[in-house]
């Protein structure tokens, strides 16, 4: 397979061994090794303000955050598409690039702000989510060709969520019923659930912290629907979805008298295991709710 290189924007939550989506970073690195993809981290990248920083951060300061990352990428990793693994990182960066492209006044102001620190924004770099890299640049055939341990007999609900899906989404996919995660599960030899009703249901996003009851009620529905279909686990491309759906199950069980213990993994977790890598390389040891069927397969 041809070697590919990208300018990588890992995001705040990816911090290894210290933050909520450390497991995402570990499994993505494993997946990329197998697919011959090199990720060159954007030097000195900053937070994108996600979709919750708007109280203190007005439009221009938030656009400037993303502009700094794009400018640093253009300076240090020229010619490489930016790739983000986090839905919010991808969304903020791509949104900023588009808005600065459409509005010359804002672009001039953003560059004036950036001039305080050095980098200048050309704003010519495509900004991709890792799911786009997999589907559009690499393709399902090449992804399938690397499978050493098919995920046989594992039933997996593809939970796409919000921000990897709207407003940009993956080219050719529908906002209401995207099918790429189901196709990926099938490609890896697992059993997909194309009729999973909650695949684009919101988990509450950042409101999981500020409005936990409202968020957990939605998460309950996401998990319940997966159980209704007999799923062994849920797979998602978004770190906010992964955390919100996985880690509050104890609290949900207490509130609703349920007995949920539904593992929630990333596409990269599935791929690392299907590619024959260890539980550690797939970051299965960083699950709050163990994905037993993947543990067993990885140990084989």
């Amino acid at each position: 397979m041809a070697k590919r290189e990208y300018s990588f924007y890992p995001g705040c939550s990816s911090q290894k061994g210290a933050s909520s989506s450390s497991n995402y970073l570990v499994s993505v690195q494993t997946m990329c090794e197998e697919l011959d993809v090199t990720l060159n981290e954007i030097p000195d990248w900053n937070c994108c303000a996600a979709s919750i920083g708007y109280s203190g951060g007005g439009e221009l300061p938030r656009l400037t955050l993303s502009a700094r990352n794009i400018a640093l990428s253009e300076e240090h990793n020229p010619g490489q598409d930016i790739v983000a693994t986090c839905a919010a990182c991808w969304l903020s960066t791509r949104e900023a690039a588009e808005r600065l492209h459409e509005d010359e006044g804002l672009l001039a102001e953003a560059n004036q702000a950036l001039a305080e620190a050095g980098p200048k924004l050309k704003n010519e770099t495509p900004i991709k989510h890792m799911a786009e890299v997999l589907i559009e640049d690499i393709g399902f055939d090449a992804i399938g060709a690397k499978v050493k341990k098919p995920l046989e007999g594992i039933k997996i609900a593809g939970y796409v969520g919000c921000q990897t899906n709207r407003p940009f989404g993956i080219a050719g996919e529908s906002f209401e019923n995207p099918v790429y995660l189901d196709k990926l599960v099938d490609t890896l030899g697992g059993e997909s659930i194309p009729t999973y009703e909650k695949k684009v249901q919101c988990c509450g996003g950042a409101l999981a912290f500020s409005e936990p009851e409202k968020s957990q009620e939605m998460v309950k529905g996401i998990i319940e629907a997966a159980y209704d279909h007999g799923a062994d686990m849920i797979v998602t491309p978004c770190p906010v979805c992964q955390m919100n759906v996985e880690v509050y199950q104890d609290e949900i069980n207490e509130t609703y008298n349920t007995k949920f213990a539904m593992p929630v993994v990333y596409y990269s977790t599935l791929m690392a295991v299907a590619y024959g890598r260890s539980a550690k390389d797939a970051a299965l040891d960083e699950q709050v709710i163990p994905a037993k069927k993947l543990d067993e397969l990885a140990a084989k």
Partner: protein
Amino acid sequence: MTANPAMIEKYRNNFLKEVEANVEEGEWVKMCMQCGVCSGSCPLGTFWDHPPQEIFMMIRAGKREEVLSSESMWMCTSCYNCIVRCPRELPITHIMHGLAHYAKRLGLVPQNQPTAKFSQMFWDNLMKKGRVNELKLGLSLCFMNGFGEGVKTAMKKQKLGMNMLKSRRMNPMEAIGGHGVKDVSGFQKAIAKAQELEDARIAQHGAN
């Protein structure tokens, strides 16, 4: 038929003009045709005092205080359902964030609005070092309603914290220092400059 600018002006009250000038993507508000798809698509729709379509009409009706002091826009989860379904393609999510930010700027946010508080904490947290420190953010969230409440919340969240620690997705060492950008001063200068430029633009239009 040609548009009559004088008549159009008559229907553009001061608050609509203020929103168009000062609120992110505010110039789109007049495009709403009141179909209600946004309100029906919102995952937290039932919790909004005034769903987006109503907010848009209230802006056009000049209900400044009621809009800006509403909790409604703080219910937005940024799921983008409304944006992709709006037949007029209004960037509704961004307008809601814009209204929330403008309300904060004018000091009109209802006291103790939890998402308003968390949103501000998130921003303050990221501004310190250029990257969000999840541990510190979690602790500020826990104690956002004072020490007594905070201890209760901490007890309730003990198991969650232990789970995150055990799975190595939280690190107590982040409490001292923690990660950040190398060029903190350049980073802060750039964002301060952006803030200054935006403040100047808004001052020029005036917040009547």
